[in-house]
């Protein structure tokens, strides 16, 4: 049963991450929450969420002083139907800039999903970030919530 449940939840995540291009990133500055819409891509093992930002942004500064972040991904259609149909996933974890040795590989992954951002992600001031996910909170059917602990 548990195996079936785990793979059910992983499939929900994979489908959502394949369909959705944008996610909301939450950071904070001295306790003041701050949120941004980000293009993202997930690793196949679901352990990492990748996104990019230039180093002069507030979100970058926020993460530099506290790298704990949350991301929200969802498939809402902005219609009433969302209440019974939409899937919402909150990921919690920590973000770091990708080490040089992994950069090429992740850039390729990112550009494959967001071809129009290829120049952006490879520009010198752009930081490619890896969010190491600890937990996914998966909301379906309006109020059904499962936690998938992915870290460890």
């Amino acid at each position, binding site marked *: *049963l*548990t195996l079936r*449940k785990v793979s059910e939840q992983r499939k929900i995540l994979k489908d959502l991450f394949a369909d959705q291009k944008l996610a909301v990133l939450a950071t904070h500055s001295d306790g003041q929450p701050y949120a941004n819409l980000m293009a993202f891509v997930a690793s196949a093992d679901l352990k990492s969420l990748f996104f990019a930002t230039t180093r002069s942004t507030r979100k970058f500064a926020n993460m530099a002083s506290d790298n704990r972040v949350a991301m929200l991904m969802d498939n809402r259609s902005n219609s009433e*139907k969302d209440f*019974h149909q939409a899937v919402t996933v909150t990921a919690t974890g920590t973000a770091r800039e990708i080490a040089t040795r992994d950069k090429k590989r992740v850039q390729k992954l990112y550009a494959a999903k967001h071809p129009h951002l290829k120049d952006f992600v490879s520009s010198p001031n752009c930081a490619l970030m890896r969010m190491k996910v600890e937990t996914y909170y998966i909301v379906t059917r309006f109020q059904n919530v499962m936690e998938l602990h992915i870290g460890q």
Partner: protein
Amino acid sequence: MIRRLEHISESDKNQVGGKACSLARMLQTGIRIPNGVCIGTEVYDEFVSSSGLREGILMELNRKKFEEMRWEEIWDAALRIRNKFLNTPMPAGIADELKGLLSSQFGHNPVVIRSSAPGEDAATTSFAGLHESYVNIQDVDAMLEHIRLVWASLWSDRALLYRRELGLNVETSTMAVVVQELVSGERSGVVFGMNPNDDSQGIIEAVHGLNQGLVDGTVEPDRWFVRRETGEVISHSPAARENAVLPSTTGVELKPLPQATSANPPLNPAEAQKVFTLARKAEALFHAPQDVEWTFRSKTLYALQSRPITTRSDATAEDKRPWYLSLTRSYENLKRLRERIEDELIPDMIEVADRLAEQRVDTLDDRHLASEIKRRTRILAKWEQTYEDEFIPFAHGARLFGQVYNDTMRPSDPHEFADLLGGTNMASIQRNEMLAQLAEAIRRNPVLERQLRNPDDATLDADFEALLNTFMDTFGEFTFSGAHSGKNRRHIIDLVLEMASREPVKKRFEPDRVKRLTEEFLSRFTDEKKEFAADLLDLGRASYRLRDDDNIYLGRIESHVHTAVREGRDRITARGHFNAARLEPREVARALTDSSYRPREAKASDAAGRQRKLRARQLLGQPAGPGIGTGTARVVTSPSDLFDFKAGEILVCDSIDPNMTFIVPLAAGIVERRGGMLIHGAIVAREYGIPCVTGVPDAPSLIHNGQQVTVDGFLGIVVIGKPTLSRESPTGGLSEA
């Protein structure tokens, strides 16, 4: 949006549905039908959109996967949806338009209101009878209300189940409604242009009165087989002709036929000929053999509706519609079922259990014990089948009452009717009350409590001892998944000690509530209708009570299976080869007769690491008992878990059967995997005012002993764990190592 039947053309089909379309075509080719209008799907769509019902319905149906819902849960959801329709007035604009049109069209004449859903009556998907029709509706407000009820029937359990069976998408379902003048025919029936079993023949069925009695099966028809080519009668099988369905002040009623009428068949040969000609005309019009409902008012023949016959070749996919239709049972049918259950089945069960109780198993040799185990298992299997086939359908008695109650009272809580059903001297309630008495005796007597806590103290208070013995004699056999052992007395003592350790639970409702609700319900009816309402309540109560009692009696039979199986397990374990404690009855019988038999090892459950990985945080079920309760989870999967239960814990289980309701008063909240409104857990929880959520998929495996659980019985959700986030400590710097 609203069209007169004579103005409807084939191109309107998606807005008016198949029934309206075929009526219009008959009318336009000169077949006489009662005059009428069709309220298009646009009106339905506007109603559900402007009122927010559309998403409300879909949220209700998406609380869990549809294929995981038991039909009782679907029925439950359907009931809530129906109540939403009943309690949602039509927007003023639509109401005014409909009222104006209906009064100009029909004045004060009574009408028939019927569904005409697009997709209905197509050759491959016959929805015949799945949606509601209402006959003899008189004033304009009542018409509007019944239009809403016809709309609601799009979401009845049987309509939902049937759509699932056909793989139709419920999200796009919509419905048109036909309103026609009521033609109070004296003779009515159905004609089949072709006999599905013999394509050289046609069949005419006819009854006195309206054809509702024929269509729903309460009145047996006269039947004629005719030659398809000529319409000539081959044979006529007369019926008993005892009753007829006739219009009453509002609606219809079943009345005995006067002798003079019942002596004659509803049709003479010339009329039969005329009816069959109608079927052939319809067949020519629709290019396929038809099943036509008709009625004669004096000498005039009216067609009421026509649809293609599902022929044998079409039916290869096995038409299960009859089964879905059987989900609603008529009052008459239920009354017969009640007699059979009360007068035959329950006494039989008691007798079987008594006979089993007399048969000792410890004196049998191994071979005879093995056959006794098999025999008892067979007896149990037979009664379990009876339970499926006859006791479960009788639950519809409660459902029928519930529907009438909700229609009459329009309660804001669609489950209020369930409160009128319980408390009528059920075996489980008697048992629970005795336990409460035992607990109360302990509360009042600290010496007794000390004695009971010390198992070696043999001399108990005489009154208490007597009460305990009576309890053990009457209910000592009760089981939960076969819990039955010599430890029962100790278990019961521990249980009543636990019960005594907290204040007696006050029932949620004032003592006279049921009486008050009953009086209010009955006061809405007059004369013979009042009598019918009282009979219906009585039927509902019997239905609920028997569903409780049958479980108790089935539990008794089950306990005798376990007595024999336990004896076998003990003997096998005593041989010293392996522990037989978990052996299935079949394996026990085998091992008793074959000393070399070794059961296969059960597989170890999957890795614990996986289990830690996935946690349920909030689970969605059905709200079954209002209130919010927080406590430590106690997952009950076996009898011993039941007796470990501590006051103030949250009871998490597969389903509460009547045999375990006694721990309910100890619980701070209840979570059940099994869903449905008439399940015992839900009703007992309501009675004691304990928050309860049912129909939570996988609850017993997703919730673990000791977890903090909050049961929200208003919203039907269960929250597991504390509201904290797992987190690392803050770190500055962003470079990866």
